[in-house]
């Protein structure tokens, strides 16, 4: 029997090997588009003229691989709509508990989509920075957006940002997209049912707790990492990180299943040996 300290090392090494394998040898696993991806895509496509979209980022830079690709794909769908004049623009905020660690995630997403060269800052997009206080900050944004966020991340007064003209409270946005790897209870309490549609870019682990809100129409659509994101990327018309991670995800899930089976086989053999 292998020593316990070596068992863990073997588990880790096999895990790394399995996770990286598809990067070296692509497996070619097919992926078809499901209704959830189509619903999300259509919810954005059907935005009315002149809409302003709020993208609230709760995740921080540590969630780049899980939460980044879905919002990158969302921004890539929004950019041509803004350039074509269908919608007015995007505003990024974060009320995250992780504080300013969410800003680097937003910056990385902006770099990946080349927002600063494709859209005009202040007129077509804005980064409002971190608003401390989490749910309290969200409550204030709902009640009085301009008092909650008097300046953007770079120190410019909100009155000098044309994209936010006429935005006084959260209900003045037409769409809110929440990027979160944690549950959405606070957002639902403060922004749910206030008027704007809400789309959730969430982690798979949070989908369970989000489903009741989806069923009740409080949240109008969702996007989860990798599998659904790769389908969404197909609809938007590019192959991004979501698609690249898709195969790695499949091999890891198979490894997890085999690990569980192996753990139970070892457990039952040890039990029999003790008897």
């Amino acid at each position, binding site marked *: 029997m292998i020593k316990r300290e070596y068992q863990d*090392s073997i588990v880790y090494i096999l895990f790394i090997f399995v996770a990286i394998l598809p990067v070296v040898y692509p497996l070619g696993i097919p992926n078809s588009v499901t209704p959830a991806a189509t619903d999300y895509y259509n919810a954005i496509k059907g935005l009315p003229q002149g809409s302003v979209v709020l993208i609230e980022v709760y995740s921080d830079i540590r969630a780049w691989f899980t939460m980044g690709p879905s919002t990158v794909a969302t921004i890539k769908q929004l950019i041509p709509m803004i350039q074509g004049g269908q919608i007015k623009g995007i505003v990024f905020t974060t009320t995250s508990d992780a504080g300013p660690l969410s800003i680097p995630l937003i910056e990385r997403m902006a770099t990946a989509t080349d927002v600063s060269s494709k859209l005009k800052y202040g007129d077509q997009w804005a980064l409002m920075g971190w608003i*401390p206080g989490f749910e309290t900050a969200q409550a204030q944004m709902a009640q009085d957006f301009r008092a909650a966020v008097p300046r953007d991340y770079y120190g410019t007064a909100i009155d000098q940002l044309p994209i936010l003209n006429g935005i006084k409270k959260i209900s003045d946005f037409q769409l809110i997209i929440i990027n979160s790897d944690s549950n959405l209870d606070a957002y639902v309490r403060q922004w749910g049912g206030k008027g704007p549609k809400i789309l959730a870019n969430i*982690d798979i*682990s949070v989908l369970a707790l989000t489903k009741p*809100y989806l069923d*009740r129409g409080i949240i109008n659509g969702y996007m989860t990492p990798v599998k659904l994101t790769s389908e969404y990327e197909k609809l938007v018309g590019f192959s991004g990180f979501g698609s690249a991670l898709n195969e790695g995800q499949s091999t890891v*899930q198979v490894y997890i299943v085999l690990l569980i089976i192996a753990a139970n086989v070892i457990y039952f053999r040890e039990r029999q040996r003790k008897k």
Partner: protein
Amino acid sequence: MASYVEVESIFYAAIVLMTWSWLYKGDNPFYKIIEHATIGLFLAVSAQGVIQAIQTRIVGPLTVGALFPALPFLMLGIFTLTRMVPKLRFMSIWVIALMSGVGTGVAVKGVVIPMIIKQTIINPWTSPNIFSNINNVLVWVATITTLIYFVYSIKREAFGGVVRVLAEIGRIFMMLGFGVVLAGFLFVAGINVTGVGTYLVQYPGYYVTAIGTVILIGYIIWSRNHQKK
């Protein structure tokens, strides 16, 4: 001259391997360097956010003579900092009380409709699709029995043991539901390793991987010889 992408790959590979060294040896110099650098970076980013928040809400308004509400905010901030002074610590409790009270009020005002009322609305059981009806009944049963499971003020033997039966049914549904949640958490596990692992196997990161592997093998051999002595 190396391109930016190549330099990025080398940095990523080096940082990934230094951090993953913890998996083999626990706390070691490589991991400690990364750990302390992480804390320094976190502090810097947090400090910038905090400075900006105070600049916007206190310093900026005070410099243009707008005393309200900047001055009360400054007082609250000073009260918060009295936590470091034992004789004045009681002032920080006032601030915590204010923060807790506002936080509770904010949470309560949004809780009733989305979290309670709307969750008790039942989907129809009499639609033309029988499977949909069965599923809606099962969802209702799962919700009720899960709530019963967590009611500890009624004895399980009450009402002729009916409570026990319902609680056990709730437990079965919970195990099925939590399995889905567990799968969700495991899902995250793989994505990160695939993402960062990409830098270890692509050019020029694999050179860093090779050097790291040689160092690891050398260390294993050295420590075995050291132990024998």
